[in-house]
């Protein structure tokens, strides 16, 4: 229940911008069993920074976003955006939420500028803000060209511009790098980081690009089979999946192996060449014990480094684990 995270409040303490508790959603399909998209999803996104939303295809990311934006109805569960229950109070907060979900959706025969103006009129946003956003995404000069004539990257940038029109407190971006060239990807990532640092905007970034999440996000929630299987600061999520292995390098490898085995450590069976001539020690709770054991025998370390899980490994381990 939402209560375990505290009641949403704006009275001087941090309020989650997104709260999801026990959300279930199944899609009925003709002559096929229902497809379970969300299976008791719990998710909390604190205000500020960039929160990554990562998961393999079909894990429920887009369904979660669609439910938060009122496009899809959850079968059960409680959801809040900026402290307000959705979908009931969505009209109260939608003016503070910008979104780009999958492909940008615009009239193909209208120019980019006209498309943005129509949306701006809906929310009473000035034309000056439209120009600012076009400028921000580098489309001001091409603003009068028809949307259908835009490249994939330009369409994506216009979608981001539309999402930014409201100066949102919460910016939901679903695969914003799709179709962008390397320079465009870099620009978008810098923009996301800049927005995340402004202290006002929280960016909720759904992506399948592990590198993007690792590079851009402060926090991450990882989805698998309709549930959130890990959440927290990116480094913390990595650390929690750490193997506890340590790489040890000393001049006299054979003696060092004997000392460590005698001290009770478990060594990898791999030949030293497999790890660049180093010894791999498993399940080390405190690497200082290794230092102590080797120093007692006058064996001096040239390297002692914990082997951290890379993000990809952590992601695969989390998402491929059996329920």
């Amino acid at each position, binding site marked *: 229940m939402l209560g375990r995270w505290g009641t949403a409040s*704006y*009275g*001087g*303490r*941090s*309020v989650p*911008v997104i709260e999801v508790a026990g959300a279930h959603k199944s*899609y009925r399909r003709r002559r096929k069993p229902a497809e379970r998209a969300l299976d008791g999803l719990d998710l909390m996104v*604190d*205000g*500020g*920074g960039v929160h990554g939303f990562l998961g393999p295809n079909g894990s429920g990311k887009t369904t979660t976003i*669609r439910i938060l*934006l*009122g*496009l*899809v*109805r959850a079968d059960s569960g409680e959801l809040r955006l*900026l*402290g*307000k229950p959705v*979908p009931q109070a*969505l*009209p*109260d*907060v*939608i*003016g*503070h*939420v*910008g*979104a780009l*979900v999958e*492909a*940008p*959706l*615009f*009239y*193909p*025969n*209208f120019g980019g500028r*006209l498309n943005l*103006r*129509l*949306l*701006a*009129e*809906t*929310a*009473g*946003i000035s034309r000056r803000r439209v120009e600012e956003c076009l400028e921000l995404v580098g489309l001001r000069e091409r603003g009068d060209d028809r949307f259908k004539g835009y490249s994939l990257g330009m369409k994506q940038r216009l979608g981001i511009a*539309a999402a930014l029109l*409201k100066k949102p*407190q919460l910016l939901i971006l679903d695969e914003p790098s799709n179709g962008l060239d390397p320079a465009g990807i870099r620009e978008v990532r810098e923009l996301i980081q800049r927005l*995340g*640092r402004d*202290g*006002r905007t*929280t960016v909720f970034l759904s992506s399948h690009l592990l590198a993007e999440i690792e590079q851009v996000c*402060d926090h991450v929630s990882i989805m698998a089979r309709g549930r959130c299987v890990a959440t927290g600061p990116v480094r913390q999520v990595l650390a929690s999946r750490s193997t506890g292995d340590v790489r040890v390098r000393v001049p006299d490898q054979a003696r060092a192996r004997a000392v460590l085995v005698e001290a009770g450590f478990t060594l990898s069976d791999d030949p030293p060449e497999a790890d660049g001539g180093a010894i791999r020690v498993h399940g080390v709770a405190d690497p200082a014990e290794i230092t102590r054991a080797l120093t007692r025998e006058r064996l001096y370390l040239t390297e002692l480094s914990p082997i951290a899980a890379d993000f990809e490994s952590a992601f695969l381990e989390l998402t491929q684990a059996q329920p």
Partner: protein
Amino acid sequence: MTDLAAATMTPSPAPDDPPHGSLLRAEVHRFRSRRFIQVVLALALVGYALVITLASATGFGKTTPEQLAAAERNVAEIVEEQNRFREQCLGDANRPVDIPPELVCGPPNTAESFPVEQFLDKVPFVLADNLPDGGIAVAVASAALAFLLGATYVGAEWSSRSMVALLFWEPRRFKVRRVKLGVLIGAAAMLAVFGQALWWGTALVMTRYLGRTGSLPADFYADLLAQQGRSVLLVVFAALLGFGVSNLIRNTGAALGVGFVYFAVVENAIRVVRPRWQEWLLTDNAAALVLTGGHRIFIFGEGFVDEQGAFVESGREVLLTNLHGGLVLGVATAVLVALGVVLFQRRDLH
């Protein structure tokens, strides 16, 4: 403290009231900016001008007294000739005696049997006759146009999925639908009023240069205005029907296809297979709504063979009143639109 920590610990600002926009203004802007709608309306105007020009050049014209006299002489000669043939027929000994002579030789001919206009190269434009008749033609054309506009207005939004994008800005689906319907109703009514006004103006000009006013019944203008009012209603219904079908199918082309199949195939099939249902068909009720005094239809029955072995058609004549036409069209439109609105409220959108 890192930026991130600072940002996380900073209370999120309270969501104050979002800026007040105008969905209605945006929708009107969206509607009138649609290139397809602009092109269709422009083409309709060009088509109207073309038809009027052709009709004026080839069909209507003032008649000189000499031309009229010549035509009347022509009619008198034909009447005399036809009656001579009739007399010959009646006096023919071989004429079947068991069939009434009126059925074999026909009734006596009079000048009324041969309208004098048929014997003139160009007929005068008679305001009393042509203004109401032309108004109905304009209403039918406007209704077809309105069906197309209604279908494309919402169909294009589904095709481009900008309907979904709009919900990121206004998540109250019922409000979105209400505003869109309001814009469409307003646009259809304007189209209908403009069409009728344009035709009225055209008719006055044609009367001035190509014809005469004719004898106007006492309640001519009251009847005309009532007919035009009902025409506006028909055009609005047509626009809503187009909207309703397109909204259910989510595609303009498919909606137009459904419309074509219904009007060209289904209605004709019903007239043949289930003639009793004819009084519920949309086209008959559209005619009933617009025509002054309603629309008479003959509903064919099974028919039978009489004692002499002749096939006798059975059936009944039904008067579909203006009210009947309005109610049938209104209910059909309301059901279709309501179904679309309810589904839009409930459906998951992807």
